[in-house]
């Protein structure tokens, strides 16, 4: 087991597949000291972190979205910021701005004051309450790990992990995230209401005299480095060409037959519901998300290679938010989860 007390040699040199699984499981168990249930959501959250992606968390109020993200920051012992998105929030409020500062010698000069975006883990709470202009302030940071303000580009310290929460109800006065913004999130994690037993556990854990505490997995000074090493380990996982083709085929199958969008090269697998209900299918980032998520899953399973099952396990989280449904889908009450399910069913027989 590796924790802060085991620091010494370069973490990347010491880490192995077994280490990855141990660290992952430990972080998971620490989070579950605070978060009751939501095992799949926690696994997807950590997977996205180690795969180098960002996560969009969707859930009704009171399901522990913010608590989950806060707990993750504590467990990983990384710098953590929280932005409550509101309609009057401006991009500069997120990225930071240049302000005039008086020096000790009385001189005044412009100085860049970093915004809350400068951290390792950023929680964008209710991101759909901000205007698209403000939402877009996150784009550069999420994709390129840098922020440009006042003509100057400032790099963000790795690891950088954005978790944004969405409230699917109370839609008045909200701004749905633009597709380009949505595509930046590797996974969309859904948090549902807890079951009865889980609710009892939550009551016991939160209404007693003692609050549940978590133990950080990493020491503060080495957390970033170790997480980066784990991310590199994930990228080492070997992918067979057939599995890569399977992921690509799934993504292509989510795209409706529309030559203006997908070009003349059509998907070898046709799915009726896709052509009927989908306006835009998953982007290539969807395929990357599938593969990266599968790599994490393979390491957790103690494998150096990914399997078809790994791809399928992450398909809902990686693809649902990338599929734009049309009015017919809303009319027929068809959701993206159904589309992804049908796509996997259609593509599965074409495995090698």
């Amino acid at each position, binding site marked *: 087991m590796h924790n802060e007390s085991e620091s010494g040699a370069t973490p990347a040199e010491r880490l192995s*597949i077994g280490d990855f699984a141990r660290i992952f499981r430990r972080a998971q168990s620490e989070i579950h000291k605070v978060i009751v249930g939501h095992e799949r959501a926690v696994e997807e959250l950590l997977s996205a972190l180690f795969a180098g992606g960002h996560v969009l968390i969707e859930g009704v109020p009171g399901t522990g979205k913010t608590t989950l993200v806060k707990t993750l920051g504590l467990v990983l012992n990384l710098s953590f910021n929280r932005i409550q998105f509101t309609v009057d929030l401006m991009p500069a409020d997120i990225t930071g701005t240049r302000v005039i500062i008086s020096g000790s010698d009385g001189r005044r000069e412009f100085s860049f004051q970093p915004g809350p975006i400068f951290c390792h883990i950023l929680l964008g709470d209710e991101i759909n309450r901000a205007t698209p202009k403000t939402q877009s302030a996150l784009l550069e940071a999420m994709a390129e790990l840098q922020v440009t303000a006042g003509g100057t580009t400032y790099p963000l310290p790795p690891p950088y992990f954005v978790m944004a929460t969405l409230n699917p109800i109370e839609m008045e006065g909200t701004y749905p995230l633009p597709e380009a913004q949505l595509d930046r999130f590797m996974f969309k994690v859904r948090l549902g209401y807890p079951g009865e037993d889980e609710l009892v556990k939550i009551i016991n854990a939160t209404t007693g005299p003692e609050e549940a505490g978590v133990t950080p997995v990493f020491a503060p000074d080495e957390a970033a480095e170790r997480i980066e090493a784990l991310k590199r380990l994930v990228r*080492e*996982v*070997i*992918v*067979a*060409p*057939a*599995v890569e083709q399977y992921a690509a085929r799934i993504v292509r199958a989510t795209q409706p037959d529309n030559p203006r969008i997908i070009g003349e090269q059509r998907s070898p697998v046709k799915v009726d519901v896709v052509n009927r209900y989908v306006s835009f299918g998953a982007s290539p980032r969807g395929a990357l998300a599938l593969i990266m998520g599968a790599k994490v899953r*393979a390491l957790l*399973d*103690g*494998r*150096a*290679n*990914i*399997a*078809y*099952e*790994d791809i399928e396990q992450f398909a809902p989280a990686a693809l649902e938010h990338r599929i734009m449904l049309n009015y017919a889908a809303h009319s027929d009450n068809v959701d993206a989860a159904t589309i992804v399910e049908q796509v996997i069913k259609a593509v599965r027989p074409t*495995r*090698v």
Partner: protein
Amino acid sequence: MPQQAHEQKLWLILFQLRAIRARINSLAAQYFAFSSLAIIILAATLVLAAAALMSPLAFLLTALLITLMALISIVRVTRVAVRSSVSPIKAASLADERAGLKGRLMTVLSLGDARRNSEFGQFLVEDTYDRRNEFEPIKIEPRWFSRSILALAGSCLVALLLLRVTRLAVGVRRMPNRPNQVIAELGNLDIRPADPALEPNAEIYADETTMRKLANKLASAKNDQADNSSVSHWLNQARRFASNLQEKLTGQQHKPPLELRLTDKDGMSSLNPPYRHPPIPDQNESDGDDKGVAKSGSDGGTGPTPSPAVGQLAQGGAGLSGIPNAQSGQASSSDVGSPESSATGAGDGVSHGSGADPEHLFGPPASQPMGTDTFKITIDAQPSDESSTAGAPAYIPPKVRVPLNEQQSADEPIARASVPPGDQMTIKRVFER
């Protein structure tokens, strides 16, 4: 040294994969061979059974259907066999799935040289090698023989049973046949050939209704022959082809279909008979206006007696326009011969049948043995036994020609002779009885 061990393990994994692939592809090949053979055996047996049991046209249709189905089945079997055969990567994928190896073999197989020697590559090879017991060929594919061998065995069994049943069925059908008797089935016409060893252009005898039907049939046949594109023409062609095929398959010789034509002693030029009876120097010949049977009938007491049926047929006309004067009344009033000759076929007063008027039994003796030139009928039909169902192939009795002794006479119409008055009553009584 560790590198060599790594390569050795990798080689062993790949060797095991090749064995798995060989086994799966062997099963696919077996499936193709056994299934195809089973289909061919079954189809051939069915065709043989159809050849033995069915009429030519029904056999032809059945054989075509069976052949078509067999071809389709073989194509499908081939497709399944091709799909069942596996490439190396497919074999690895299959082994992964059956052994629960989660893509390890497939990934090992697709490792490039660079990746093979990487840390994760080595880990993967080691990990897979440690699980080599899980993907032994016998565990991935335990069968040595394809289950399709059961289909082949079943097919052979069914074929044997079918052949046995067919043989029995054919034997049962032969039993009711009486020796030296063949019944020619001509649709709904009840016609019996005079000679069991029915040859083309044989003579048959029938009542007037039958004769009329024959005339209609011949007229229809003539029309069909004139129109080469008609359905019946092609049906006849198909029937001949199927009959030949049946003969080849069953080894039974079928007689060629008999052609049926109505003719009179002058040849019935309108019907163009293939066979003409030798002209009989008869009084009928003297009546130059009359032709055929009608003419014979009009000769009264001097010539052969036309049957009433013949007279009716002549009036009915189809194909017999050359005998317009044949009147039944004339025949009955003038003929001294047997009026029932229509049933027996001897139109020259020779009595063979029953139901004739005994008053006409006797007449002046004929100058010479009588011929059967009232009608010469060529049968256009397949000979068949009585018990056969419609369209079934006929049992052909063997031709037996036994030399007659001195006390026997040839089976031909007996010339009318003078009967002593004292015997006439006796003959009449016997006849009436």
